[in-house]
């Protein structure tokens, strides 16, 4: 790309590292984050799918979100808060650190701030990622399992299907990811194994 001398000079002068600033418009949850006295926004960038990534630190300068090696990682800010059973409530805001189920779903296009259906899809995705079949907040899987997912609509359950998901957990379960999953379903929500149940509430399937 050709650039005039003056423009090149201006661009060179403007290569700067910036702290958090108001250069990206903030949604209500992000505004709450910006006002949170215990957190400092070090940097914010826009990802390819439109989600804003934040790098946050605590007042002592340590990263708010870290990976397994202790390195600082990015986060997303979500409206509302989550109860222990995985249900959502509209008050406050939440920080979803990279590597967690919420962040994984956002990075796969499940953007909860894009309306009611999008929020339900996001909640269904989080249940699916954690194998929270019963919708009670209990994850029944371990890291390292790669799963394939399909939105409901065109998908036809088959031999490889694990479960169909809604914001409240699984709607129907064909098989579980781990023996612990089967045991928990047997104790807490055995009705999910009834494949004759209606699947109209399924938003997402996985294999």
């Amino acid at each position, binding site marked *: 790309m050709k650039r005039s001398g003056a423009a090149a000079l201006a661009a060179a002068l403007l290569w700067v*590292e*910036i702290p958090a600033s108001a*250069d990206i418009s903030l949604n209500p949850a992000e505004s709450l984050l910006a006002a949170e006295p215990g957190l400092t926004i070090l940097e914010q960038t826009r990802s*390819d799918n439109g989600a804003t990534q934040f790098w946050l630190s605590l007042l002592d300068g340590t990263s708010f979100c870290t990976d397994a090696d202790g390195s600082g990682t990015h986060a997303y800010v979500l409206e509302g*808060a*989550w109860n222990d059973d995985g249900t959502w409530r509209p008050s406050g805001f*939440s920080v979803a*650190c990279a590597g967690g189920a919420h962040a994984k779903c956002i990075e796969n*296009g499940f953007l909860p701030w894009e309306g009611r259906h999008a929020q339900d899809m996001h909640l269904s995705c989080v249940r699916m990622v954690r194998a929270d079949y019963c919708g009670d907040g209990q994850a029944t899987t371990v890291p390292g399992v790669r799963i394939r*997912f399909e939105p409901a609509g065109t998908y036809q359950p088959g031999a490889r299907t694990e479960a169909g998901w809604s914001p409240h957990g699984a709607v129907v379960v064909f098989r579980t990811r781990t023996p612990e999953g089967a045991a928990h379903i047997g104790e807490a929500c055995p009705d999910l194994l009834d494949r004759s149940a209606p699947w109209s509430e399924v938003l997402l399937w996985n294999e």
Partner: protein
Amino acid sequence: MKKTLTVLAVAGSIFTMSAASALACDSDDRPSRGGADGGGWLDNGPDLGLISFAATLTATSVAGPK
């Protein structure tokens, strides 16, 4: 490591773009919006990675590791 490039546009607006995003913009194979519309693959895991704050700006719960 991501570096932030801040460009002051002619109109005075400021845009922030990560170097990774800038590279993706130059490529034809930039990621799509992902599976919410068309399905895909992802790594499962038990951790929520979520910290909720009350409207009073106080951390109320920590679900899963940071």
